[in-house]
């Protein structure tokens, strides 16, 4: 009675997900015909590249200071073994016992901020964990509990990393101010590095302030915007930035790596900072 079917199948043997017994009997796990794998693949590649680069640089423990510039990976520098930076972000609170690269101490904070960021979560859940790789493409895991239990329930601490990220951004802002000196620490000078630092700090701030937790704290938690006009306007500004959170996340990731790499080039003598004045 039923017309002949191209790919007739019996009901699924209840193997879960889209092949649950009651669902339409379709053998293919998904029927997407577009290049759905491109976005997660590109995301994974981009993140991986940054992880490799930043791991190398963080553990290098060298070539992170070229007066007047300090690599954002090493600022603030919290161990005694740190390079002495004239009026720079030295704060040896960890004393002399810290034996490895001082970048490790401070990088925990921006790393934690980005790791718990609502955009990066999407990016690596999709790109690395394939949960899901793309919309309507099944994920490979049999069981899924999301962020309901340890360790992923810890993602809820994002806002504390946001507070920490504010402090770090403050220090990096200070570093950028210091970049308006020349290599002899005289004020009122600028080089290409100053521009690199300026661009980086603007992107860092834009990314930090466009954070979803920031949006919530600034005004999103209110029930009545009309009773808090100033916070409502601030919320509006943050919301507009928040629209671009993904773009800012990538842009600031690239800019921070570039700023570090620029310092590396100067410190290793491969390149001399072109001075404008």
């Amino acid at each position, binding site marked *: 009675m039923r017309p002949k079917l191209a790919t007739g199948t019996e009901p699924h043997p209840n193997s879960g997900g889209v092949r649950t017994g009651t669902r339409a009997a379709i053998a293919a796990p998904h029927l997407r*015909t577009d290049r759905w794998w491109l976005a997660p693949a590109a995301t994974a590649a981009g993140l991986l590249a940054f992880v490799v680069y930043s791991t190398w640089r963080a553990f290098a423990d060298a070539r992170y200071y070229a007066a007047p510039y300090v690599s954002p990976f090493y600022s603030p520098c919290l161990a005694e073994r740190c390079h002495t930076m004239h009026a720079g972000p030295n704060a040896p609170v960890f004393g002399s016992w810290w034996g490895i690269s001082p970048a490790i101490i401070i990088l925990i904070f921006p790393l934690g901020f980005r790791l718990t960021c609502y955009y990066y979560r999407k990016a690596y859940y999709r790109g690395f964990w394939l949960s899901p790789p793309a919309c309507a493409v099944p994920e490979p895991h049999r069981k899924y509990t*999301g962020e309901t239990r340890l360790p992923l329930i810890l993602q809820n601490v994002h806002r504390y990393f946001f507070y920490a990220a504010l402090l770090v951004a403050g220090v990096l802002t200070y570093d950028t101010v210091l970049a308006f000196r020349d290599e002899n620490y005289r004020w009122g000078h600028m080089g290409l590095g100053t521009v690199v630092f300026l661009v980086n700090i603007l992107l860092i701030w834009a990314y930090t302030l466009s954070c979803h937790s920031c949006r919530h704290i600034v005004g999103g938690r209110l029930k009545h915007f009309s009773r808090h006009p100033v916070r409502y306007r601030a919320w509006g500004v943050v919301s507009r930035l928040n629209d671009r959170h993904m773009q800012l996340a990538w842009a600031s990731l690239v800019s921070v790596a570039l700023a570090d790499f620029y310092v590396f080039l100067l410190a290793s003598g491969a390149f001399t900072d072109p001075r404008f004045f």
Partner: protein
Amino acid sequence: MSGYEARFKVWRGDAGGGGLEDFKVEVNEGEVVLDIIHRLQATQAPDLAVRWNCKAGKCGSCSAEINGRPRLMCMTRMSVFDRDETITVTPLRAFPVIRDLVTDVGFNYQKAREIPAFVPPAGLGPGEYRMQQEDVDRPQEFRKCIECFLCQDTCHVVRDHEDNKQAFAGPRFLMRVAELDMHPLDAASDTGLDRSRTAQDEHGLGYCNITKCCTEVCPEGIKITDNALIPLKERAVDRKYDPLVWLGSKIRRRPSGG
């Protein structure tokens, strides 16, 4: 542009099994996928089951998966496909199938009932409600929802894990919680109902890993993740994971407690 003949594969069958059936069908200028399904009904498959109502993207009935992507058939123009492309139409794959393109969406109606309704403020009669536009803007965005259930269909939490259906309300109904929590006059908290807390404790907000497929498929362009789910997560953090807030509530509770 004139008419041409397109190749379609349409899933036909019921809970007892089925498969993709091949069709060749005429396509004219300006048509959408639903027009083609209707032409199949009128000319080749009179008993082809499909839900539809308004044919203008306002009722959310004609949800299906077209080339593997959850979409409204009435809002998918044929011009987005190449003429020699075979277009595959299947029912929503997260819900039990009834027949052909029709699925049992009862899951959604069940979840709708589990979200406590709007609580009118005590002491305000009809006609006395005063709300500012900026305060209703947020919940109004969520009320644009046409309940097509494409977000519920695409969300991997239930699409890929049938066993999570018990615990997880799905993006549409978590958004409903957010809508009520942001309603300027909802008085749920006066009755002891903490909507943000129950979002996590009872409606499965924690299952959401904000991978944004709900937002991607929403035909109304509602930013479900950014404007409803993430704010709701942040509100739950306020209640459950913020030590300052926790401490505050302890201190405030003490006098009344003893």
